[in-house]
């Protein structure tokens, strides 16, 4: 009895194998779309422009001292200067690094996958604006599961419906947290 128990021990009785495949995973040898160096330069330029815009606006608001102490624009003005300085330094550091082989920012296969989430998310925000969050949520989950995840249609529709319904009950009914709503909710008088 004891010995058999000891032999059993390493392999647990309820051992459960979990295997998840990822058929649409990005290939490792996919070509690079853009290098990190280039993106770094672009980001630094954008930040520099932002720093200039905000700096100018704060200068206009008043960035000096008056009788009661610093004016409203004082603190943010100098922060814009610091931000500008940091991005300028980053730009100077990134320029020579770009000529040397800097790392890949994103490969083509990765970009495809990232866009496969980003574009639906963007559409979701747009639909939320017009049809309300719950309808948009149903559409996003069902379409994403079906089209990107290649999951059976009935599973996609059921999951989307259940999740949306749970969210509605939790937020709208139980916790009184009101979400943007559209014509569908209005038709049901909520």
């Amino acid at each position: 009895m004891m010995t058999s128990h000891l032999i059993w021990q390493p392999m647990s009785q309820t051992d459960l194998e979990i295997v998840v495949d990822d058929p649409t995973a990005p290939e490792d040898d996919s070509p690079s779309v853009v290098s990190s160096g280039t993106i770094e330069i672009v980001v630094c330029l954008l930040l520099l422009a932002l720093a200039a815009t905000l700096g100018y606006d704060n200068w206009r608001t008043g960035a000096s001292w008056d009788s009661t102490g610093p004016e409203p624009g004082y603190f943010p003005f100098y922060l814009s200067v610091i931000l500008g300085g940091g991005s300028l330094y980053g730009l100077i550091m990134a320029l020579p690094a770009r000529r040397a082989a800097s790392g890949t920012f994103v490969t083509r296969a990765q970009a495809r996958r990232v866009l496969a989430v980003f574009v639906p998310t963007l559409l979701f925000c747009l639909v939320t604006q017009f049809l309300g969050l719950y309808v948009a949520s149903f559409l996003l989950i069902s379409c994403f599961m079906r089209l990107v995840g290649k999951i059976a249609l009935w599973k996609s529709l059921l999951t989307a419906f259940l999740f949306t319904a749970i969210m509605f009950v939790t937020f709208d009914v139980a916790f009184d947290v009101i979400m943007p709503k559209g014509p569908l909710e209005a038709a049901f008088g909520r």
Partner: protein
Amino acid sequence: MEAFGLLLHGFAVLLTWKTLVLMMFGLVLGIFVGVLPGLGGPNGVAILLPLTFTMDPTSAIVMLSCIYWGALFGGAITSILFNIPGEAWSVATTFDGYPMAQQGRAAEALTAAFTSSFIGSLVAVLLITFLAPMISSFALKFGPPEFFAVYLLTFCSFVGLGREAKHKTVISMSLGLLLAGIGMDTVSGNLRMTFGSAELLRGINFLVAVIGLFGISEILLTMEERLALRGHAASISLRVVLGVWKDLPKYWATLLRSSFIGCWLGITPGGAIAASFMGYNLAKRFSKDPESFGKGRIEGVFAPETAAHASGTAALLPMLALGIPGSGTAAILLGGLMVWGLNPGPLLFVEHKDFVWGLIASMYLGNVVGLVLVLTTVPIFASILRVPFAAVAPMIVVSCAIGAYAIQNAMFDIWLMLGFGVVGYIFKKIGIPLAPFTLALVLGNRAEDAFRLSMIGSGGDLKVFWSNGLVGSISTLAIVLLFWPVVDGVLSRVGWTQRTKVMSP
């Protein structure tokens, strides 16, 4: 011993059915969030924050902090079983945890991970219990110059001690401070940087930014990876648990060392990630046979997990005592305090005793309940991973949108969240750290107010930051930390420090 009596009072606050149910709910959600790819501690807390808006502050913080403890526990499950660190601070746990699982010792590794997490948190909570009231009563004497000096110290130590390129930390921090300034100026009431937009009048809400920066960007990043996995979910028998616990005293030095490292790095902005690596490296260095690390040694699980949890918990100390968060998650909890109408800072200990001691008591109770919960339910949570990411990803997006909208009932915030998602994705990929940005965004207005109030008090004389011993030493320390790499270089050239080599893992 006053702390002890107050702690008992905290337990009394906590022991109602409603709070206990919320606690369990929070822990389960937290483990769920910790196990799922593309979500983690800060994201989970940020997304679920809106659920708490209508609760009283004590229930709300108990639930949110339990989500955090749950997420800390959950991260270890995927690291050990599947070699996929759910969180950056669980990376070091995979070094020995995954080999152990491959040798059929998964249950042992999981028990070790959960137990050491528990020990790490416990040490940090003890520290909070006795140190936080002392610090906060000391800080009650602080005026605006002292507070500004402390904020400055926080910001400077991020720049000086952070491991990212310095200019990137500076960019991240100044951008956060600038965005915090958008909208109505709290001192004069003037509008700043709104460019005539009515939407920008409200300012950029910290939580909206956090949901985008961590939630949305994490989904984009996760999609870049191959999401296939293979492994065994072992259930843990009582025999294994007792076996591991019986051996615990042998590893007291490792546990103590890692707890200490974790507490220290949690209070200073080193964070749980640095703590877990340092705990691991030091355990290896002090070991008699360092070669056996990385091949399935139980100490290699104890060391990083203890340190990560001690650090994650200790990060709440400065938040409670001074109103300065020690980590991203602590920053989000701080944002929560403001939403619930509490004013973070040393006065919390005076004005909201129930809240503070309820929270501290929940750290004790939450960790005990969490430990029992994870030990008994590992296979259930591991099988969550069977749910395809194509189903999880859109649900996370919807949850993020709900969270972002609920904060101010503004559609604009959903768009803002999406924008911050893109920014977070790009920043993470080019190495601009997000933690300083988050910290700056949540502390920006308070830091500026403190600065301007001290300037008004002193008539515009910067010498006010060196006007007495206390504020002077904090300000000086801040400047020293800002230029720490330079100072450190000079010191080691003179032959003063060898210690620094050990400090950086």
